């Protein structure tokens, strides 16, 4: 029978990441009320969201502790697919004007 190990409270270990995530969320709200152009605000908020998401994936989801091959298999593939999607969207706007009933 596997020996039971006492569960130490793991929560304090992750509190720094937790507070950084909350701070990023607060900073995003603050920036949303500053006078940025929509495109600039979108880029800034997206950048902060990527930072928060990366922290959660690496530490909460423990990707940082897994074998590097798992990271190298999953994340570059995800980024590649998202970038490829990104190339299609702009074309979809062009296609809007090619519809039979478009003016």
């Amino acid at each position, binding site marked *: 029978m*596997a020996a*039971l*190990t*006492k*569960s*130490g*409270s*793991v*929560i304090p270990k*992750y*509190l720094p990441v*937790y507070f950084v*995530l*909350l701070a*990023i*969320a*607060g900073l*995003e*709200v603050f*920036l*949303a*009320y500053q006078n940025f152009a*929509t*495109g600039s*605000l*979108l880029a800034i*908020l*997206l950048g*902060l*969201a990527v930072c*928060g*998401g990366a922290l*959660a*994936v690496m530490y*909460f*989801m423990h990707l940082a502790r*897994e*074998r590097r*091959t*798992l990271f190298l*298999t*999953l994340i570059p*593939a*995800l980024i590649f*697919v*998202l970038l490829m*999607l*990104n190339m299609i*969207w*702009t074309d*979809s*706007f062009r296609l809007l004007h090619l519809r039979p009933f478009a003016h």
Partner: protein
Amino acid sequence: MAGHGTALMEASPFAIPSRKLTMWLFIISDAVTFGALLFGYGYLRTASPDWPTPFKFNPSILNVMIMTFVLVTSSLTMLGAVDAAKAGDKPKAGRFMWSTILLGVIFAGLHIREWFGLIDEGVRLFQNPWGSPLFGATFFSITGLHLLHVVSGVVAIAVIARGFARGKLTAGHVETTGLYWHFVDVVWMFVVPLVYLLNVSR
């Protein structure tokens, strides 16, 4: 004979159980789904000069801040559940999992309240009182898909908590469900700035 047995047991390429690898693959495919929705929304949002900006600080943004706090805190309790489950501490794992469920239910309740607030103001899938008619379609589809993930996660954690308490499921199941729950949290980190904060009412 030993060689025959060894040949049948091929090592995992990532040194993780197949259940966990499957969850990672699901998460990556789900991330692409959300990515597609958010990219599509982002282009529409920046290309539409009459895009509505209906979210006032009180109640909408305040509500969203509380929802973010609740969801990130639920990730922390899920980490506690995984740790306790791995240590074989079933009562503690159960307490953490039911705390996560409670926080998930609170999040869903706040989300639905936000939806009803907008519906009361006249927002529908393809019309709203303020501007681009696509606002409702993008808002309800993105936040609705996320809400569906939250509700699914709450149900999944409840099933896993019950099975783990009865000894039918293992700590591996708790860990895999935890991965999913953290992913729901990650998606929310992108939904808040793009869907809500880009559209604050000044």
